[in-house]
Structures are given as C-alpha cells and as structure tokens.
C-alpha cells in the first residue's frame, strides 16, 4: 500500500484475478521496452506527513513575507487583509474538491457562486456581462486582445505605456500567435498622452488597452481618452485595479468595451504571484465572443430555479478549433474567494476601503515627497499607489530599508529604463499610519545616507 491509496495485497490479487492477469506488470505489456524507464525514478523516498510539513515549513521560513516586514510592494498584487471566512468557505470540500460543473444537477453550489460572482463583477466594473473568471490579470488582457481580433478582423493593438509591464509583455507573447502587432503610446506626466494616442489609432487598430489607475498609480482620464481610442472602431479594453472602483467612476460609465483585471486584491492571498484570478467583463454585444466559463440562470423540468454553464458553443470542448478561447481549467476557487470578499466588504465596505486607501495614500505621498532627495514622479490624482523619484541609487536605498525591516516599494528601473530613479509605493488598509511614518523615517534616512555616501566618494 502506498500513500493515499487503499489497495492491499489481497485486494490486488482479487482484482488481478478478475482482470485475468497474473501481475500488475502485465497490465503494462503494451508499453514497448524501448520507451520504458527501466529504473526507479531518481527522486527522494516518500516521507511521513510530519517530515513533509517540516521540509516545507523550513523553506517557507526563508521568505521575507508580509508578516515579517512592513511592506509597500504593490505593482499588481497587494497585501490586503483576507478575512477568515474566505479561508473557511474555500476550504469546504464541496467547493475545494469538485471539478468544472459539467453536471449541473449536482453542481448548483458552484454554479450559483459563479452567477453571483458575475453579478458582483458587473456591479463593480459597471459592465452588463461578465464571465466566471480567467487565469489572472495579464493573460486576461491578452484574452481581450483575441476577442478584439476576432471581432474587428484587424491586426494592431495599441497599448498605453501605463499598462502593467506584465500585461504588455503577455499581450506581445500572445500576439505572435494571433498574428497581431503591439504598438505603444507614451505617457505624458504620468498619464497616457492623448495626442499621441490620437495619432496612433487607425483603421487597422483592433483594440486600445489602457489601465485605470495606471501602473504609476495615476487615474487615467478615461472620459477624454475613450472617444479618441474608439474613433476608428477599435475595442477599448480597460484593465482596472478592482478595489479602487469603490470610489472611482467605473469604466463601464466611461466608454470601456471590455474591462479586465487582476483579481488577487479581492480576497486572494499573495501566494508569490498565484493562483489568483482574472476578471473579464464586457458590453452585451460581446457576450458570445467572451472567453472562459459563463454561468446562466434557467429552470429545471419542474420549474425550479437553477444554474448551468451557458453559451458553451463558444468553448473548446464543443467548438474546438473555432473556440473563442482554449481555456478549460481556470481559477474557479479563486473567483469564489473574490465573490466572498466582495460580499464581506459589501456595498458600504468597498467604498470605505477606497476612501481609506485614498486618505492614507495622500498622507503617505505628502510625507514622502517632503523628504530631502525625494520628489514625486508625477502629480496626477491617485488612489492607492504613487511613484517617487529618488536622488540616490534606488537599489541601494531599498537594501538599506530592508535591513530595517521595511520593504519600501517596487523599483521602476527594470521595467522603465527612463525611470531608473523611480520607486512605486503601494498602500492598503494594512498600511497603518505608524507603518507609513516608519517608511518615511526609514526611506528618508536611507536616501540621506546614500547621498552622503556618494558625496564622500565624489
């Protein structure tokens, strides 16, 4: 007997006799000798549960996680508090262990949760329809590109430089398959350059991609950009930071055709980058071109209300090479966490969260910008993330802060060479005033020390 199985030697004998073979080896007679491994796998021997726990716990202990340092890292994933009910509900085996609800009669729980999730995402984004989730943010951006390509038959994507670097790169990767090209529009003082956008969008533009707020935390002026983006019939895709929509005007009211985003901030743990989920909401006209699963309401033969996976003729298991996406297994459990979180926050909580972040961010932004050797990278309105410019080497400053248990943020240089002196700082409801004050003191001291260091060396 091995781990997680029940077959005893007696069981095996009885089963082999029924099959009519003498040994388990005989069951593999059809595997030619030439393709057999013929030796044991070179992996360590199996371990008792306690040792497995110990090994993984030792690995986990070598990570500087958010309970061990005061962190202002964001840039697409954020350390929001995940309420206990999310864990407790998502760990219920009824949600954790089934697969995709192909048999709706015994999957009403999962299907209803999807339907409610779709409703919540529609409410948040201001869009009429939503799917039941995709993998994560950046690949959702790329999936929106496929919709736009199929819809318009055009071959060019126009992206703002304010779109998350991972989203831009993922769209580039997928574009090789789509046969599309990606053209970038620069930023002007922290937001998408509307004039450059107008000059770039043309009759070959399938979609325009904006981020709201953008990678630098700046709230894009969608009301101005949307008509420009859509002037030649392109699909306007807006990637959003979901928790900010508690206070920001939803993209659905500002001309967006497709709204996508990273779902992690909605009740999902950081998990070193995944699993989380991507959301995908759209105008009604795109419903039959959407990627992924969609739950729909219907009735059973007795007239009872029920839910099914609907519009399945879009999907790979039915439509095969003509499918609107190849997605099969996606992120249902993470989307469930998102739906629970949005219910937990509720109509008031989502607004309060947005306001809380805006207040604390304003405080943090002012405090940090007043430090010697630190200034704002842009002065645009923000909700929860903002960019600074340091008059000292960013990597060295971050190292000094880390030594004092503060992760001061994300250095912009790797993704934006033009901002090698840039630092992106993120605020959540977990960043208290004391944390922000500690950041200000630490960052101020680190910048001062580095400037002094440089002066001495000069």
């Amino acid at each position, binding site marked *: 007997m091995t781990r997680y199985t029940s077959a005893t030697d007696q069981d095996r004998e009885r089963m082999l006799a029924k*099959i009519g073979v003498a040994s388990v080896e005989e069951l593999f007679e059809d595997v030619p000798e030439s393709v057999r491994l013929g030796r044991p796998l070179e992996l360590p021997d199996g371990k008792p549960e306690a040792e497995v726990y110990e090994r993984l716990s030792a690995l986990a202990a070598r990570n500087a996680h958010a309970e061990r340092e005061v962190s202002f890292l964001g840039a697409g994933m954020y350390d929001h508090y995940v309420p206990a009910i999310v864990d407790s509900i998502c760990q219920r085996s009824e949600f954790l262990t089934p697969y995709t609800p192909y*048999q709706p009669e015994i999957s009403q729980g999962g299907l209803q949760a999807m339907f409610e999730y779709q409703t919540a995402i529609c409410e948040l984004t201001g869009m009429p329809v939503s799917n039941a989730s995709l993998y994560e943010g950046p690949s959702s951006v790329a999936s929106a590109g496929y919709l736009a390509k199929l819809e318009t038959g055009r071959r060019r994507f126009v992206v703002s430089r304010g779109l998350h670097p*991972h989203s831009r*790169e993922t769209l580039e990767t997928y574009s090789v398959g789509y046969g599309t090209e990606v053209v970038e529009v620069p930023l002007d003082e922290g937001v998408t350059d509307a004039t450059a956008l107008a000059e770039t969008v043309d009759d070959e533009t399938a979609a325009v991609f904006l981020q709201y707020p953008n990678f630098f935390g700046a709230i894009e002026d969608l009301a101005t950009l949307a008509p420009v983006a859509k002037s030649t019939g392109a699909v306007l895709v807006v990637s959003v930071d979901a928790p900010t929509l508690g206070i920001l005007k939803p993209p659905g009211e500002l001309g967006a055709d497709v709204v996508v985003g990273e779902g992690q901030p909605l009740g999902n743990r950081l998990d070193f980058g995944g*699993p989380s989920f991507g959301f995908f909401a759209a105008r009604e006209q795109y419903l039959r071109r959407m990627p992924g699963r969609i739950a729909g309401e219907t009735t059973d033969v007795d007239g009872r209300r029920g839910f099914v996976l609907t519009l399945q003729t879009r999907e790979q*298991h039915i439509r095969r090479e003509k499918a609107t996406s190849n997605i099969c297994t996606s992120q249902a459990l993470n989307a469930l966490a998102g739906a629970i979180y949005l219910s937990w926050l509720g109509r008031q909580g989502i607004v309060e969260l947005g306001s809380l972040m805006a207040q604390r961010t304003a405080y943090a932004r002012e405090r940090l910008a007043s430090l010697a050797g630190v200034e704002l990278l842009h002065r645009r309105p923000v909700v929860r993330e903002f960019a600074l410019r340091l008059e000292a080497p960013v990597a060295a400053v971050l190292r000094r802060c880390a030594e004092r248990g503060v992760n001061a943020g994300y250095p912009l240089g790797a993704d934006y060479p033009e901002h090698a002196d840039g630092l992106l700082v993120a605020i959540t409801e977990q960043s208290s005033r004391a944390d922000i004050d500690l950041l200000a003191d630490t960052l101020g001291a680190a910048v001062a020390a580095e400037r002094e260091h440089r002066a001495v060396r000069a």
Partner: protein
Amino acid sequence: MNRPMQRPPADASAPTPMQREPTITIFEKSHEGRRAAYLPEAGVPERPLSELIPGELLRGEAPGLPEISEPEIVRHYNRISRRNFDLDSGFYPLGSCTMKHNPKVNERVAALPGHARLHPLTPSERAQGALELMWLLQRSLVEICGLPHVSLQPSAGAHGELAGLLLTRAYHADRGEHRTKVLTPDTAHGTNPATVTMAGYEVVKVASDERGGIDVDDLRAKADDDVACLMLTNPNTLGLFDERISEIAEIVHGTGATLYYDGANLNAVMGISRPGDMGFDIVHVNLHKSFSQPHGGGGPGAGPIAVSDRIEPYLPRPQVVRGEQENGGPPMFRLDFDRPKSIGRLRGFQGNFGVFVRSYAYILSLGGDGLKEASETAVLNANYLLALMKDGRAGRYLPVAFDRLCKHEFVLSGAKAKRDLGVKTLDVAKRLLDFGFHPPTVYFPLLVDEALMVEPTETETAEMLDAFAEAVEEILAEAEEHPEVARSAPYTTPVRRLDEVAATKRPVVRQPL
C-alpha cells in the same frame, strides 16, 4: 459500505427536502444597512475625497454589492455548498480529469504565511525558500518527464499547450522556417485544436486506426514539411497506450516538426514510461491532475512544461535558476530574465506558486516509488472496473470501444443502449446521479459514439468500483423494463434536468438588481 443508497425513488411528485428549499442568491438576501466588514480607522488627517480626487473621476453611486452580515454570508455559502457533489464525498470517475485524493497536508503547507503572504516581487535574496521550492519542483518534473528543462509558468494545461505551440513557432522561426499546420488526432482534447488556432496554425486531423492508436499511414500522408508539430497524448483519450509511439516520433521528427505531449494522461505512466523517452520535445503536466492540486470547481491548476535541449532557448521568461556563490556559500536561486530568444511572458509574475507548493508536497510524500505505485494502482483500478463492466448488462449495452488492456481510463460506447433500450449515454449519466455517483465524462472522445469515459484513479477501493459497476447494472436492468425512468433522471438531486436551451437562447448571466 460506500454505497450511497439503494435503488432510488423515481417518483418526481415527492420532492426531496433540498428540492423544496428555495434558491436565493446572496443579492436577494441583502438588507440595507447590514454589513460584515469593519475596516480600520484611517488614522491620518482626513480631507474630503473630492479634494484628493477630482469629482468627475469619482463614482456617483456605490456598486450594488450585497449588504449582509458575516453569519449570513457563512450560512449562504454553506447552504449552497451542500448543493455540490465533491470528491471528498464520493466517487468521481470523470475521465481525463484525474480526480484523485487531495491530501490535506498540502493545504496546510500552502497556507503557511511564508508562502501565502509572500509578495511576488520580493527581491530574490529574500525569497530563497520560494525560489528553491520552484527549482526543486522543476528538477522533480525533469526526472518524471525525462526532459532536461522545465518552466513552471503556464497556469493550466491549455496554457501549457499554448506555450508549447509558441515555443514550436519560435523554434522554427529561429531556423528560418515558416510552417503553417499542426496535426492533432481525432481523439484529441478540445483544448488542442482551440490552442492551435490561437497560436496561428491550421488544424489538420489525423485518423485513429482500428486499435485506437494513431493511424500511422494517415500520419505519414499528412506529415509534410509544412507541419510544425504533432500534439499527442499517450496513453490517449481512449485510455490506450500507443505502442507505435517510437515510429510516430520518427515520422514527425523526420519532417523537422516537434512532438508535443498533452500531459493530461500522465497519471498512467509515472515512473514507468517518460514522455522524453518516447521522443516528445515538449510536455505539459497538469499539476491539478497527476499531482493532486484540488480542482477547486474548475481551477486553480497549473500546467508546467518540460522541454528538450533544442527547445530550451525559447522558454518563457523568467526562469528560476540556481547559481553557485563564489565565496563557497550555499547556492542562490534567482529569476533569470535575460533570455533573448524567449517567447516572453505568458502571464503575470512567476506562475501559480500555491499550486507548486501543494504538488511539491505531494511528490515529497510519495517519493519516486510512490509515484510509480500510484500509476500502477490507477491502471489496476481502471482495468478492474473495465473487467467488471464487461460482464452482464454493461457488457451488452455499454461495450468498451476498443477491447484491449487499458491504462488509467477506458471508454465505453452507449450506442447499443441507445439503440436497444432507447436510453442515451446522457440518461445513464443522469441516472447515476441518483445513485450518488459523479458520472464519467460523456460524449468524449468524439470518435466513439455515445461515449462514456471512465477514470477511477488510484484513490478508489475495490468495493467502490464494485458498487459503481452494480449501479450501472441496476440502471440498465431498470431501463430494460422502464427506459423512461433513466430518460427523466435525475430525481433526487437538488435540482432536476435543467433547461440549457433556454439558458442559451435568452442568457441571464447576472442578477438584475
């Protein structure tokens, strides 16, 4: 005994307690003023929001999320959860999905704050545990797949397939070749052809032979130098090992194309036969199938890829690499972005790390021998259940499509049940619900008329397999006398057959508020 119930009632006039429960959404439970979340005070000097953010950017009305208290949220989800069938409660022989036990320790280690609250952009030197875990999982998959390089990045099997075809495209392009076609067998998973189109290729179908394997003559005829890749799974979706795999690999490689392994069926051959040894260039592995990540109602999963040396330069960015320290210190792990020939990123950040933790815990728990035994037991269980189902009415009405040794799953055809009893595969599946079983995958692979695809996995006991075979026997016996019973099944589930046509014709995909 695992047997959920004796012959269930077929009396639709007596609804079960759960059927009598009204279906109420969380939005319908909402009452103005109720709440669950209490957020911290801002703790900083506050200003009117419109001073911080111009009024025209602010939302006029709050999003219509539910207003509901914590106990009511918990009761809501607990109530609807009971309307799900799940693997921890019963047999789930859903073919091609490998519904094996999800070990509980995996959940515990995945939830450790060092994993769960680790930000993906934490500098490498302070995320050494996470990067080492990824590296260890990569090395484990290298050994299991028999291919020297692994990228963990793809989020699921279909995402791995897309990676595989983009790698194929980059490989050919680097050699100055532009190939336009990808071959897929007529038994392929739907994700294969869907991926082919997304990757900008044209699908060319290859027929199956009379033994359920690839029709090698058809392959030979279609394998010209315009073919970029053949996508295959072995054992295939019929649960059959293609004995001519070496010959197939030779034909494909002879044209200069790549050979892609859809790892959905890897659970049959771990430690027995490795895709790399079969001649495959690119493999995806479904961590949520063979490596025990819970299926979550449709994810999350992960679809790492293993590749040969000639494909390695094109792997997605970033790659986890191990570097020795000059001062003789312990090895340092880091993310390598400097990969000039890379196809680029397929997603945000590094992949579904939480899934990696669970799957690595699974590999540690079983070890090399344990993985092999898991595959052996999965194949034993499948062949035993197949042997049971060759007897009696199942053998008569639901004969196996290809009568050979099977691997981890097998495919029955319900064509005779449909013809002789007037009971379709769908009806058999729906009647199984009344017996407390999740039905097999139905109507796939497309090659088999009225297909039922059964994958018991190594998790199940012989008694459970006996009970399943008995249930099928009872359903068929019942259908000989009263076919209408199966045709109107199920009766005991929270809802009965649902009107999918209406759902498609007039889609209601959100709650009107």
